[in-house]
């Protein structure tokens, strides 16, 4: 598989939904496969909350496997022998695209908390510019899970003529009250870390690692299902030799400690706040008299909406709400519920049915 990683600079000003703008921005982009001559085989993959541009490719010594490597690759559900797959790190992210850890050109200092509030719609807008950069007229498919699914939906809404098909997996057209509540607890733990410094921690030569770790531990619980946690960890005790902290008793504690610690090394706290805010604020119905079907009226793309029955973060019912609104608009759309055992994270993993479904949708 041909993999290309590049940082692309966009020099024009990007006006954001919040009223602020970025004087220009950079996107970290990874592509897989090759664009055909007619430029008709392009697929955009949108990442979820803590994902980035590295969506595919096997693990190497210095690099983890892409977050959707089970789905994207030669002969995989999104077949890179056939399609040119584009994956970018969203603005506001911390994997190379313009974000809170970048330098603010107007002050010469790191943005920190001054990085403007970005939204799902802003991301889609920036991805549209990316599409133009590659001189692609129409994506064959825009697809993503979770927050990535929100972007896929917004693509169909914002640019109806530029998306043939949209895959909206483990997503919602609106975060639930409970989602917002969980995210707020996570954000609070970051803000209350003594090293947070109102978001200007890098200037102070420090990082709110403890708060970020707690936030991620909470997040992890919401990504897994109760059943999966029982099966994988149960009430098993952690070996004393391998435990990451002295007060760890159970394997689940060790797992959360380990995952949280690792995440807090790699991720940026401001990005955490910004991404969760974007997720909470996303609500296309809000500007359409509160009705999703009003927001979907212009949609021309074919939709495939997938829910996973162990997902309690964005349960299948959320996907069905999108389906019902799409049906009210006469949009060609399908809604399928899969048996993922990994809770919300199920959208990341290969199953036979998931494979066949994505394939059938792509080839329909």
């Amino acid at each position, binding site marked *: 598989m041909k993999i290309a990683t590049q940082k692309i600079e966009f020099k024009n000003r990007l006006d954001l939904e919040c009223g602020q703008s970025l004087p220009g921005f950079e996107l970290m982009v990874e592509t897989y496969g090759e664009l055909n001559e007619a430029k008709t085989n392009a697929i955009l993959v949108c990442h979820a909350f803590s994902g980035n541009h590295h969506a595919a490719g096997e693990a190497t010594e210095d690099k983890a496997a892409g977050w959707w490597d089970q789905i994207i690759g030669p002969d995989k559900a999104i077949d890179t022998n056939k399609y040119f797959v584009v994956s970018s790190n969203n603005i506001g992210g911390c994997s190379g695209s313009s974000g809170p850890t970048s330098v603010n050109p107007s002050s010469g200092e790191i943005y920190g908390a001054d990085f403007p509030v970005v939204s799902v719609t802003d991301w889609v807008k920036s991805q549209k510019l990316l599409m133009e950069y590659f001189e692609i007229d129409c994506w064959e498919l825009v697809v993503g899970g979770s927050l990535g699914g929100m972007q896929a939906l917004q693509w169909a809404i914002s640019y109806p003529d530029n998306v043939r098909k949209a895959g909206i997996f483990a997503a919602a057209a609106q975060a639930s009250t409970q989602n917002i509540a969980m995210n707020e607890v996570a954000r609070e733990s970051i803000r209350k870390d003594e090293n947070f410094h109102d978001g200007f921690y890098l200037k102070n030569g420090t990082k709110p690692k403890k708060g970020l770790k707690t936030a991620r531990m909470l997040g992890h619980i919401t990504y897994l299902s109760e059943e999966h946690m029982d099966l994988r960890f149960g009430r098993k005790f952690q070996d004393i030799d391998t435990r990451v902290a002295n007060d760890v008793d159970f394997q689940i504690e060790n797992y959360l400690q380990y995952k949280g610690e690792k995440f807090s090394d790699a991720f940026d706290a401001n990005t955490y706040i910004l991404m969760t805010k974007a997720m909470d604020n996303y609500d296309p119905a809000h500007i359409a008299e509160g009705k999703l079907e009003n927001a979907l009226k212009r949609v021309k793309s*074919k939709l*495939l909406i997938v829910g996973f029955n162990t997902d309690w973060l964005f349960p299948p019912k959320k996907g*069905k709400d999108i*389906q*019902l609104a799409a*049906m*009210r608009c*006469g949009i*060609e*759309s*399908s*809604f*399928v*519920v899969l048996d993922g055992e990994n809770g919300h994270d199920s959208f990341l993993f290969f199953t036979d*049915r998931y494979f*066949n*479904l994505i394939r*059938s*949708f792509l*080839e*329909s």
Partner: protein
Amino acid sequence: MPITEIIKNWVPNKSRVIDLGCGDGALLCDLKNTKNIIGYGVEIDPDQIEVCIENGVSVIEQDIDQGINDFKSFNFDVAIMASSIQCLKKPDKALSRMLNISDQCIVTLPNFGHWRCRLDVFFGRMPVTQSLPMSWYETDNSHLCTIKDFETLCSDRGFVLKKKKYLNKNYKESWLSSLKPNLFASEGVYLIAKD
């Protein structure tokens, strides 16, 4: 005229159609190509759903027994339930719900009163026929009825049978199946409206 041809004649051009228990979506696909409809299928079998999606048929994974209410106030032009009503837990409720979500509905059902069935039962066996191909332990059919039973239900509930066709085992109308449908028709096809 096979059943799909009858249904095609009854579905108006460019109408909005929901097919409850759409199977592989062949009917919707046909209606889309020939009648330019906007159609949605409801199906529970994963393999069939996959075929629907491959053929570009919009489909919702959903149990019909529970699902029809989701489409309340949708105002479809036609709701279709082909060879499925006898599989539902509450066929009478399903029928009235169908008429709540659309102006008209098309129902097809195997006739348990067909002479072959009667003969099988007379000799002490559950019928296995062309329109009832499964053995009693394999079949999804839980509420089999005769043409007479179904029409009585409709008249009791005030549902109007606007059109009906009685088909023989070759899925054709014959003088016998029209003369004594409850005895000679193996399949009934109905266009039903509320009052």
